[in-house]
């Protein structure tokens, strides 16, 4: 069991976020409002990192291992040396996964929209390919 008494970290964060949302935001002038919104966003980042961060770290390590490196610095160095040039598709897949994992914590709304856009483009391309094959 944890050493610290309840509430848990997550619950303390939610309390602060709710205070910002319910007490500060409605009464803030325009300048303060922008900052209050920013603070609420930051609280959201911390909450998501606490809840899914560990799982994402694990997945990330596994993805790095599949390319024969153990951290981001090694991956950057490998890309720069050209040693991954022949595994470009695999590399892109890992990079997309890594970036999506960061977005899930930092900016899930961005990820959601970007993935929908990408799906729409893919569907259009498939439809065009289909039309070309049939016509």
């Amino acid at each position, binding site marked *: 069991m944890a050493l610290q008494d309840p509430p848990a970290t997550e619950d303390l964060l939610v309390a602060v976020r709710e205070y910002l949302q319910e007490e500060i935001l409605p009464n803030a*002038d*325009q*300048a303060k*409002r*922008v*900052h209050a*919104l*920013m*603070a609420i*966003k*930051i609280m959201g*980042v911390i909450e998501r990192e606490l809840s899914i961060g560990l799982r994402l770290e694990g997945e990330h390590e596994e993805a790095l291992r599949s390319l024969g490196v153990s*951290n*981001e*610095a090694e*991956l*950057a*160095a490998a*890309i*720069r040396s*050209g040693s991954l040039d022949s595994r470009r598709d695999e*590399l*892109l897949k890992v*990079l*997309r996964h*890594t*970036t*999506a994992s*960061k*977005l899930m*914590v*930092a*900016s899930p*709304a*961005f*990820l959601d*929209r*970007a993935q929908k856009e*990408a799906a729409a483009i893919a569907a259009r391309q498939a439809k065009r390919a289909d039309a070309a094959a049939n016509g």
Partner: protein
Amino acid sequence: MTVASEDLKDDDGGLNADGVEQVAESVVPNFELSEALQRVLSWQRQDPGLRISEMQRLLGGSSRITWICLATGGDGVGTRLVLRMDPPGVSRPGSLVQEGQLMTLATNSGAPVPNIIMSSDDPGLLGAPFLLMEFVDGYSHPRAILREKALEKLRPQLAGMCGQALAKIHSIPVEEVPWLATVDVLSQVRTQLDQLGEPHPVFELAVRQLEATKPQSLGTTVVHGDFRNGNLIVGAEGIRGVIDWELSHIGDPMEDLGWLCVRSWRFGGPGPVGGFGTYNQLIFSYEHASGRVLDRQLLRWWELLCSVRWGVMTMMQAQAFRQGTHRSLDTALIGRLVCEVEWDVLALLSTGRKG
């Protein structure tokens, strides 16, 4: 309507939502600055009856402080003015005066640019170097440019107008702006990335591809450096003012076109050019107005480079927070939003290879 409440409803990511837009603070009276400006301007205009009022500060991610005010002459005629100043303690001697000189040259070349009234490096006049220009009325908020009903007919033409304005900016004689530094964006990005010392495999891959596919230069011209949705003041008839010239330099004119296409400046709009236009509209109008020949693949290369440049710029802002040189909530958050730019760069790397 406020930017803040709109962003709460329509949250499509932080980098293109809060950090870079300007918000007029309700009213922040600054009598000291009003009085100082009144003294300086009534002397410059030889109008002892001139009065400055309604001094309001604009907030934003800019490295400059911007004020709007009303100048009423002794004859009772009022003019809205914009005052740009270096923040206290951050003195870059000469730069605001030179910014004003460049804007005047841009006006002379036919580009839509606010009229410059006066500028000075002397911090004794207003407390810091300043640049004073006429206020240009119109829409400047990126989302308003994308959604405002009054601009409905204009929007399909706006990318073309950007191409024309850029061609004019790029026609400013380089020898008239000897103070502007020459920048090779690709080597600058490489150097900055190395100096930051933070591994970003996505940017590493992009730089490697950019180096391997470097196209021939279209020439050496004045580059605005931040020509994008957000730095344009627009009316129903077209672009009324290109603003924020502080990043201008000498370089390849394609940089301005590539920067205009970076996804962060689309603000959720469907068009790849600023959210409002197509690549071909920009390419055709720029070719026609400048006489230079370019193609889709060249623009794609520059869009990728400019996207990486934007990523590196956000990393530098994040570093300013960590090093304590600029501590604020937005610089705190921005490091975590670099991955938005990484996503855009990956999209370009995944689709753009064959052309």
